[in-house]
């Protein structure tokens, strides 16, 4: 991330503390979104695993049926071959078991065919299981976790720690600025200072410009960035649809202050 040089490396420089609130909102947003995405990705992988497992079970049943038919065909062939007899002249009359023999061959071929398919399907499933096993390893510093562990760490730990840290910082800043903030994020002891429209607009412009910069960087640095780099967002909350929190409602997230403002 290309950040501007620090204006006050040894002092305090906060030109607009609302921008810090926006950042803590973005962090909370990131944590919640990643939690939703984690659940969606997990559901997708599980649906594939289940579908594969069901299909393999189906082929196992087919193999059992085919083996049963083979067993019946062999029994029929054996019965046929045992049905030979000696005629009145003492000659052994060999029975014609060509049909039974053909049925055994056909049944063997069917068993072989299904077994090969099953082995192939189980081999594919095994590869999938192996990759998903790695993906589901919990996050660890010494032994690295898998992707799911990373998302869990980000959504459950890192984003919470970051937002707690930032909230403590904001508490100090707001006390310093003598701004009392109510639980719903409004100013209580002093009249709310509405931001002029120009400031709101310039903030939005700044965010848009930053987004474009980040998008450009993603395009050049990340091979997985998709050519059009666009993703569907909910109009209500502006999040990717998997991470939507507003169910298409007009809600907008407000910063929630959890600390005791009476201190």
């Amino acid at each position: 991330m290309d950040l501007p040089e620090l204006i006050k490396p040894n002092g305090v420089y906060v030109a607009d503390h609302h921008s810090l609130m926006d950042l803590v909102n973005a962090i909370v947003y990131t944590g919640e979104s990643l939690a939703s995405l984690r659940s969606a990705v997990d559901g997708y992988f599980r649906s594939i695993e289940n579908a594969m497992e069901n299909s393999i079970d189906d082929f196992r049943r087919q193999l059992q049926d085919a083996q049963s038919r083979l067993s019946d065909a062999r029994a029929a062939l054996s019965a046929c071959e045992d049905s030979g007899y000696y005629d009145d002249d003492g000659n052994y009359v060999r029975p014609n078991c060509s049909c039974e023999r053909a049925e055994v061959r056909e049944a063997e071929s069917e068993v072989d065919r299904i077994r090969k398919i099953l082995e192939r399907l189980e081999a594919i499933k095994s590869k999938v299981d192996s990759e998903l096993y790695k993906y589901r390893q919990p996050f660890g510093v010494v032994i690295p976790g898998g992707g799911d562990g990373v998302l869990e760490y980000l959504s459950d730990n890192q984003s919470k720690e970051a937002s707690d840290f930032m909230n403590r910082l904001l508490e100090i800043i707001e006390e310093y600025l003598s701004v009392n903030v109510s639980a719903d994020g409004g100013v209580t002891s002093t009249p709310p200072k509405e931001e002029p429209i120009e400031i709101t607009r310039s903030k939005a412009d700044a965010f848009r410009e930053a987004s474009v910069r980040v998008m450009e960087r993603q395009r050049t640095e990340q091979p997985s960035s998709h050519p059009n780099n666009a993703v569907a967002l909910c109009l209500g909350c502006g999040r990717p649809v998997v991470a939507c929190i507003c169910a298409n409602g007009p809600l907008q997230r407000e910063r929630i202050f959890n600390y005791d403002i009476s201190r």
Partner: protein
Amino acid sequence: MSMIPDYVSQVQEVARQLEAQALVTATQWSDSRRKEFYDRYIEPMLEWIDTYVNGSSGARSMQGMGLDDLLQFMDEQVSEFEAAGGSASAGIGFFYGSMPQQIMVSPRTSRSEVQAMPLTSSNGVDIPEEQAPDQISKNRTDWTVDYNLNSPGNFSAQNLREILNRRRNN
């Protein structure tokens, strides 16, 4: 065309919003505490998200593939699985129907769909609501009979659009 959900784009969008806000905030907050905060939280979060998408990088280690490769891998395995099962497999096309409701897209089209939710793209462009009726997944056999396209359940987003256009014109 493969049917891979656009989770990678979505994760990148989340990262993009965090990084964009971090850049904006950095213009308003410019002291040692900011450096500490960004070094401790923002940079690692972005690096971990990048690792999640692209796999282990220099600074961050992760087991297995990044999400982008993993989704591609899963798609290939599903295709192989369906091909190996052949027409005898009860599962032909079943993955399509079993995918989570909210996502059903090809990754290179970045098209997501959630019920009747109005959508916009991260580029700010409205995405027209596709008139994809429920019967696509319910009456798959009819589609093949009527239009002789790919096997049911393997329709790409492009296939679906073509099907819908044909239906409208018939």
